[in-house]
């Protein structure tokens, strides 16, 4: 899962955003956001609902004008030659509902007609796995099939940059996996993808690099490994107690322990070295006459990164 191979000679970024601000009255939906998406990577904007991801996307694809800041997409700015820039983008937005009584093939064909150049709608429909549904009205598609139809509409213009806003929201895990494979195969053909998600597993699986977005700002950017490494405690020890308690200060004082927090009655210990921290924890439990219900070791996730940066959870809504 991957870090991007560094190209010799740095190519122009696919998307470059500096100091982006979008204000609605007194409310700043985007508040000084900086981003750089490199060509050929899958870049994820990860953050909770309301963090400003969708506003950012709508500015990037030219639907909204920013209040301030600099935006360049595929080396261009909006307002120069918008039609030609749009023909190089493939976009899927949240909550688009296609006309109910058009078939999959008709909808994809319609979007194909908007692009001066593009792909055969049938091959795109096959790529997203909807060939059997090509003649079906969109009203008879499942949620996952509709998301794949939206992806097909974004792909049919053969875009250099694919921009997907919450492409997998509402899908079951299996459908999400299949969807991810399609997106990855597109990246593997050398195209660039920018997507938003509030599923950290998804950001981890699909994205070469991730920007964690909070309150209209990018508070951390990097590969998955880089973000985890920034945690200063790449392992999380989860301890649940059947009896007794372990004071946070005592745990934090143990060798190898970097941070302690509590979640749903469990103690989450961030540790640099599990083999040092765990024996210490067990000794502490014995001293305090606390009885362990269970103890789990896991790799730190982007969720842990988010929590350590904001003190809040991604899923807090």
């Amino acid at each position: 899962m991957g870090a991007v191979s560094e190209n010799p000679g740095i190519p122009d970024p696919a998307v470059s955003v500096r100091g982006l601000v979008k204000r609605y009255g007194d409310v700043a939906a985007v508040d000084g956001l900086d981003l750089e998406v490199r060509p050929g990577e899958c870049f994820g904007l990860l953050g909770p609902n309301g963090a400003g991801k969708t506003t950012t996307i709508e500015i990037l694809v030219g639907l909204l004008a920013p209040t301030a800041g600099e935006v360049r997409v595929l080396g261009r700015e909006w307002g120069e030659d918008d039609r030609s820039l749009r023909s190089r983008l493939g976009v899927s937005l949240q909550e688009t509902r296609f006309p109910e009584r058009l078939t999959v093939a008709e909808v994809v064909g319609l979007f194909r007609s908007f692009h001066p150049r593009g792909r055969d709608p049938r091959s795109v429909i096959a790529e997203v796995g909807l060939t059997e549904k090509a003649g079906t009205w969109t009203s008879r598609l499942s949620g996952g099939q509709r998301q794949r139809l939206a992806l097909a509409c974004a792909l049919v213009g053969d875009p250099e940059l694919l921009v997907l806003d919450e492409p997998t929201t509402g899908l079951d895990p299996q459908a999400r996996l299949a969807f991810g494979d399609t997106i990855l195969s597109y990246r593997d053909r050398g195209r660039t993808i920018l997507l938003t998600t509030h599923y950290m597993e998804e950001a981890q699986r699909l994205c070469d690099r991730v920007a964690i977005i909070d309150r209209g700002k990018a508070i951390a950017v990097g590969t998955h490994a880089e973000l985890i490494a920034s945690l200063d405690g790449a392992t999380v020890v989860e301890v649940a107690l059947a009896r007794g308690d372990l004071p946070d200060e005592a745990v934090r004082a143990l060798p190898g322990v970097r941070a302690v927090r509590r979640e749903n009655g469990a103690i989450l210990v961030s540790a640099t070295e599990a083999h040092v921290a765990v024996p210490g924890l067990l000794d502490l439990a014995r001293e305090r006459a606390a009885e362990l219900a269970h103890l789990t070791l896991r790799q730190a996730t982007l969720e842990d990164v988010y929590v350590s940066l904001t003190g809040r959870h991604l899923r807090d809504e």
Partner: protein
Amino acid sequence: MNSPLWSLVVTRFRESLRYPETIFWTFLFPALLAGALGIAFRGEAGVPSVAVVAAGPGAERVVAALASDNAVRVESLPRPEAEHRLRTGRATILVVPGSPLVYRYDPTRPESRLARERIDRAIQRAAGRNDPMETRDDPVTEPGGRYIDFLVPGLLGMNLMGGGLWGIGWVVVEMRIRKLLKLQLTTPMPRRDFLLSHVLVRLAFIPLEIVPLLLIARLLFGVATAGSLFALTFIAVVGAISFAGLGTLVASRATTTTTISGLINLCTFPMIVLSGVFFSTSRFPDAVQPAIRALPLTALNDALRAVMVDGASVVSQGPELLVLVLWGAASFVVALRIFRWS
């Protein structure tokens, strides 16, 4: 690959035909309405006047006098029930025997005034009146002068108006709610093509909106078009484009279906009443006539009626066409300025 404009038109047309509602409201409903109204208002001359006679002394003689006239249907009832019939409109006139004989009726109802004349004549004759001048009726039913002949052009106009406002207004707002407008805007689709496609779809619907209605009117009532088919088509096209403009205007900002249906009803209902669909605009006071004549539906109905009933040419309908063009142009200009894409 197809052009965006062509694809938008074909897709939209195909989609709307997949809704049975479209078929009903566009083709069937106006034809059914024409049929029903044509039968209901087939002319007062053919409909007998319904009279009630208050029971009492002299009632029998009145009933006998009226029964001889087959333009009158008569029944003798006790006074309270007779009054009830009159009040509820099931009788057009109440005759109270006596001296003098009393006619109770509502003079604002044309059928009651007609009944009064018929009944008075029958009673006076039975009482021995002799008309000093001999007369004879020679009834004519000329196609062109009947209510149905008045009605059909009005229904055509109403149908073209409904098509423009619902067919564009409603549909565009639905696309906005479904966030399709927004998504299409991220593609290189020209905005101009999107709006133009709706106008073209409206034109494609014209034959479907007028041919079934004209056929039914012709088959059931012998309604013919006095003027040329070209003139009729030309005026229908100008009317459809004009209302396409109005449809685009009402659709330009609305973001909920409640708003758009309210806006559409706000436009259509007053015009259905004022613009001479079911009855002549001459029933309204002279003071408001200029305003009524400035309405697009009045212009369209007047022009259609002139062609169908009087055989007028396109050229003679210049002022009406100008009204339609001005409405259409002004609507499009404003709509394009204020149109909300996302």
